């Protein structure tokens, strides 16, 4: 498959209150953006279990976007900070697994920022397009990288949680 025709598949986890509404707004305002992000609504970015991200990548997604309210504007007060922490941890894990960390993006988008969210989606699509397909699904069966990922994740998860909230 040549790079020109490669259409990345990106899974987006958008919080119900800010970013999903930003996606609604982008629609209402007819802002065109890359059709590559397939969106899952969660109540909060805090709900995004790091295993969701790994699962998406393992099943064939080329990238994952997590989008939520700006720091300080979380509708559950501060849960997006927890998403931020997990994001840092995940990036670390992906790095350890030899996966480009740009395949994961954390985006803040308030309900008023449809244009910003659309721009971020288009930008990320181009970034991932340049990186090429991840094909993790085809590859991980051959080695034990998936298991490694899960183990490493579980370990880091436990370590990260030792720091009080």
């Amino acid at each position, binding site marked *: *498959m040549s790079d020109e*025709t*490669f*259409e990345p*598949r990106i*899974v987006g986890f958008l919080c119900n*209150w800010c970013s*999903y*509404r930003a*996606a*609604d707004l*982008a*629609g*209402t305002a*007819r*802002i*065109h*953006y890359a*059709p590559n992000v*397939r*969106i*899952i*609504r*969660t*109540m*909060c970015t*805090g*709900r*995004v*279990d*790091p295993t*969701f991200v790994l*699962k*998406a990548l393992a*099943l*064939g*997604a080329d990238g994952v976007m997590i989008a939520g309210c*700006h720091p*300080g*504007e*979380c*509708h*559950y*007060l*501060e*849960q997006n900070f*927890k998403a931020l922490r*997990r994001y840092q941890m995940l990036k670390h894990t992906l790095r350890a697994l030899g996966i480009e960390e740009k395949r994961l993006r954390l985006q803040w988008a308030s309900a*008023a920022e449809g244009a910003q969210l*659309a721009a971020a989606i288009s930008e990320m699509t181009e970034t991932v397009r340049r990186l090429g*397909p991840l*094909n993790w*699904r*085809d590859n991980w069966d051959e080695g034990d990288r998936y298991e490694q990922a899960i183990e490493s994740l*579980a370990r880091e*998860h*436990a370590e990260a*949680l030792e720091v*009080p*909230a």
Partner: protein
Amino acid sequence: MAERVGVYVCHCGSNIAGVVDVEAVARWAEANLEGVVVARDYKFMCSSLGQELVKEDIEKEGLTRVVVAACSPHLHEKTFRRACAAGGLNPYYFQMASIREQVSWVTEDRAQATQKAKMLIAGAVQRVLHHQALEPSQVPVNEHTMIVGAGIAGIQAALELADAGHPVYLVEREPSIGGHMAQFDKTFPTLDCAACILTPKMSDVDAHDNIKLLSYSEVEEVSGFIGNFHVRLRKKARYVDEDTCTGCGICIEKCPKKVVDEVFEAGLGYRKAIYRPFPQAVPKYPVIDTESCIYFERGTCKACEKFCPTGAIDFEQQDSMMELDVGNIVLATGFRLFDCTRIPQYGYGRLANVFTSLEFERMGNAAGPTGGRIVLRDGVTEPKSVAIVHCVGSRDSRHHPYCSAVCCMAALKFGHLVLERTQAEVYSFYIDIRTPQKGYEEFYDRLQEEGMHFVRGRVAEITDAARSPGEEGKLIVQVEDTLIGRQRRVPVDMVILMGAMEPRLDAKEVAVRFGISCSMDGWFIERHPKLDPVATMTDGVFIAGTCQGPKDIPGSVAQGAAAAARVQGMISRGTVLIEPVVASIDESKCSGCRICNDLCPFNAIDYLEQEGVSRIQTALCKGCGTCVAACPSGAITGAHFNDEQIMAEIEGLLYDVLHTNGAQAPAEEPAPA
């Protein structure tokens, strides 16, 4: 039993069908997706006929799950849940795919749009297979309401509720109610005397049988949830017994200690160590300021006690704690004025005759420190020229980006007062004059006729360094007049800085205490900026007045009344339904590690010492799911957003990869539009 899924693809007229090949999508879903027994496309799914279609299929085809691919769930999820319920299906056996906002409105390419729509539907179908029947829970609503902050917004809310026959606790941290409005002399644009319209409302509050006024008190802790809040507050010691004090005021007269009143008189006037902020204060009981009272300083004096005819002075009084049970809470905690010393080039605090707007309000007030005379800091000299500087701290990327909304009108009012009471020339230095309410533009016209001078430009500096003999002894306003395109130096005697409205310093702490959120600036965030301006994301907690954002008196009053109406709605319904999207802990899996306990911002998770497990108080849980994602034992389940459901949705969204062995699915030829 295998689930029977019905998929409905909406055309939304041509909104979706114009870009997405809806018929092909429906055919594809029926042919390829597991569990789908019926897939239809329909012009307008949200119409009564579209809803009827869902209902009929549930009955005739025995559907056990429903997926509608149409607009955003924020628009019509409730509509289709109702349709499911009408067909006898639990409304939570429903899932929506947003193929309008996320596909047809944002994508031009028909092939890609159609493909994306299919994937979103595959995600929804796989998810809905794992849905569980849920029931909203019902809780009773306590009839009592607590209103925090007794400025004009809080007073209005309290009176509306009390007049409707509902009991109200009105909590105010200052010794008297009235808020900022009590400090003003006139109100724009009608120039009503503020006291004449406010003090009757204050007396009504005082006398109302349904209002329990808790002045000089602060909320320390809030627990519980809509309909059933439990509040702990601190009633600060006044050192005056409210039951015996008659409010005669002899104590104030006899007190030998005079101090500058930094709060009510904005530092321009004096008060005694035992004081009432202003003569019409409600409640009428004075309060002893222990910082300045001679007795608290040196242990002698007690003049007030000696002269009090009823023996109401009590130097031993302590702060007391109160507990209240209320059903709803209205926050009307107001604003504070921008600290003008933060812009040193304007000289406030350094140049004597630079005043803040609040200082000028007090000076203009007939009952204020100068008796309404407009004079320089020396207290006698009338100014011959006055500069009013707009946008001090607002519309300024170094301080606050927002427009403070009221300062233009207040500046016009100040201009009017100066012109009415002195012979002075008045200059307004503005960026834009904003007068967007009833009668406001007319007031602006009036001031232009009255001879106020308007200079367009942001003031660069205010200085006393004269460059010419004409500037000697004056304050010079350095400004670029952007209408004539030149720098100007305008010498004046007095400068008034129209400081921005700012959130209270403790707004963020208050927000956390009440479980609501603040914007980056620190204003409380409403549930919806247009359609739900006084509710918050926390059910049962409402906001009114300037704590939500800069606004004038009519705006604050309207919000106070609106919040009261919302509370009344809750009270008259008597019970509230609570969304079943909450987390729960499987105690057989819980290891008692307590990680989740600290993650919850609503303190909904308790650790049960004896059982060695954590338990979630369902009514407190808002359903964010953070604890679900964090539980290392997988013991926590987030209803309607559980791991199975989300994992299934991920799989569905990646249907094309999983069913073509990684190769790109060839884009289907779009059908002719």
